[in-house]
């Protein structure tokens, strides 16, 4: 494909259904032609700007300018629901079959089909920030592109989840790697769960089963089927929580947040292609993420998929396992405030050994943080919990050497295997 042909076909990438061959050709051309790629991205930016935001939710933590770590857990969880709909619906296309199927059964075929998917690729556009945790969503944020690729080979799974110009995670079958270019390079075993709730995107069977469970649990959770000439749309609306949803959300709470998910399947192959996830909070609706095309069973190079930067990696597992038993006991018995004090003192005194476990994700930033806070004092600590965040915010007064004071906060959480507080944001 040359540039002229690309410009003739690029509009097709914005159609309701996208020919796989056309898409593959355009993608291959963009990989070689930065100008055409930039052109497409500009079109996409305008296309995204035209998407209705519909409304923004009210932030639940009012603090200073430093960005919040609202882990919109229900949103992330629901986002994951949709991405699990890798299904073949051909046998359900007849109206009578759909009309007679129990509501929850709409997902059963999907679960079976998902188990047979060998690979998938998709671009998720989510309201978030490039460097924050994958589980972080912000209704007022711009859309950030997140590229996801997953490959199943033999009995192993390999995946790559990458925010454009931001945080990325790769799993090579044994080890997870998470990095923010220039700022963070950490690795850990599978159990490290760097993706948090976002990991559900990679277990579509689980998501479908949870959604089916939600539908079966309460009639207040709805699924509505609509149809056009070329597509079938399942719109899921969930408000009622059941034990599966609670488990998915871990210790977070859904609150009054309703999730509305529009799943569009192409009729000719029955596969989920487009997704829109909206959050309805206090009657106001916000489009939080959308996926414009999902590709299945794509040819994928495992080597490319699991390629990681060539750099020094901090081993998250080693850092915590080095902790002696008596120290571990002390760390486990700390309050969030005590942990925050210890972390901040470590930074101020430039002695990371005082808080090495807590600062495992901030190791690279430590020298810069210490330089910034050199000579400062911290005082007036106050904890605050927010229902949407699994950790704790600890607010404090930072007094600079020149006497100037600032109100700041640090986010800490201890939902890890060892139940010790770890710095999660605010630094």
């Amino acid at each position, binding site marked *: 494909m040359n540039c002229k042909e690309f410009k003739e076909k*690029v*509009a*097709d990438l*914005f*159609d*309701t*259904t996208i020919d796989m061959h056309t898409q593959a050709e355009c993608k291959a051309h963009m990989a070689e032609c930065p100008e055409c790629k930039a052109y497409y991205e*500009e*079109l996409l*930016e*305008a*296309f995204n*700007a*035209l*998407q*209705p*935001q*519909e*409304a*923004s939710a009210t932030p639940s933590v009012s603090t200073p300018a430093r960005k919040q770590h609202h882990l919109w857990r229900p949103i992330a969880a629901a986002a994951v629901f949709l991405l699990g709909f890798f299904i073949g619906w051909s046998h359900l296309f007849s109206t009578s079959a759909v009309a007679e199927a129990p509501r929850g059964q709409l997902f059963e075929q999907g679960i079976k089909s998902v188990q047979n998917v060998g690979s998938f690729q998709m671009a998720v556009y989510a309201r978030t920030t490039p460097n924050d945790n994958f589980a972080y969503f912000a209704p*007022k944020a711009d859309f950030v592109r997140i590229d996801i690729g997953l490959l199943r080979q033999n009995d192993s799974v390999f995946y790559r989840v990458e925010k454009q110009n931001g945080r990325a995670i790769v799993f090579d079958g044994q080890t997870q790697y998470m990095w923010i270019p220039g700022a963070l390079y950490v690795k850990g075993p599978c159990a490290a769960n760097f993706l948090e709730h976002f990991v559900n995107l990679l277990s579509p069977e689980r998501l479908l089963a949870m959604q089916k469970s939600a539908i079966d649990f309460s009639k207040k959770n709805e699924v509505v089927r*609509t*149809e*056009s*000439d*070329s597509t079938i749309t399942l719109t899921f609306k969930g408000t009622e929580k059941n034990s599966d949803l609670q488990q998915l959300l871990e210790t977070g709470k859904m609150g009054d947040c309703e999730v509305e998910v529009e799943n569009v399947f192409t009729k000719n192959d029955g596969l989920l292609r487009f997704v829109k996830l909206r959050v309805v909070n206090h009657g*106001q*609706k916000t489009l939080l993420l959308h996926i414009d095309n999902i590709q299945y069973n794509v040819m994928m190079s495992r080597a490319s998929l699991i390629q990681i930067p060539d750099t020094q990696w901090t081993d998250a597992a080693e850092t915590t396992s080095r902790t002696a038993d008596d120290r571990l006991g002390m760390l486990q018995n700390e309050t969030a405030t005590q942990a925050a004090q210890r972390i901040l003192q470590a930074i101020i005194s430039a002695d990371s050994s005082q808080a090495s476990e807590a600062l495992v994700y901030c190791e690279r930033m430590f020298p810069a943080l210490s330089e910034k806070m050199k000579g400062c004092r911290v005082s007036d600590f106050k904890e605050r919990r927010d229902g949407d965040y699994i950790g704790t915010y600890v607010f404090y007064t930072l007094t600079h050497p020149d006497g100037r004071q600032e109100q700041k906060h640090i986010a800490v959480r201890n939902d890890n295997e060892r139940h010790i507080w770890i710095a999660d944001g605010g630094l």
Partner: protein
Amino acid sequence: MNKENNITMNELAKHLQREQPHLMRYACYRLGDADNAKDALQDAYLKLCGKLSDGTGKDVKDWRNYIFRTLSNICTSRLSQSSRFKTVPIDARLDLADIPSENNEADNQRIVQLLAEIPEEQAEVIRLRIYGNNSFADVAEILALPLPTVKSRFLYGLEKIRKAMKQTNH
């Protein structure tokens, strides 16, 4: 009304119910506010019922596209009667894509302003494609245009919107 008309009325009702969110959204962004959009949708429904009553409904092959075409014509008619073609004063051109929205009406206006940056013929294609959730082929049928023309207008519209967004960000 005979049985054939009854069946077609049922089909019409089903299409309207199914497509109502898309029809409503399209009309909102065309006319600029929800109340006007509701009126237009009501007018479209009455017009379509009239078509069935006089027996010409059986000639319609694709009801979905026909509904959109009817609504599009009604919106055009309303706009020309009220002379409310959308213009945006230069001093009101803020960050078009970045106006923080606190409610639906504000977001509606944000999008209406974005679409006001481009010729109406391009905006109409974009509205039908995005808010009407129509494929390009459907849009071509609704507007009785060749498919390549529809795609060109869509692309040119996005290009101009992107350019306008860049200008207001500097």
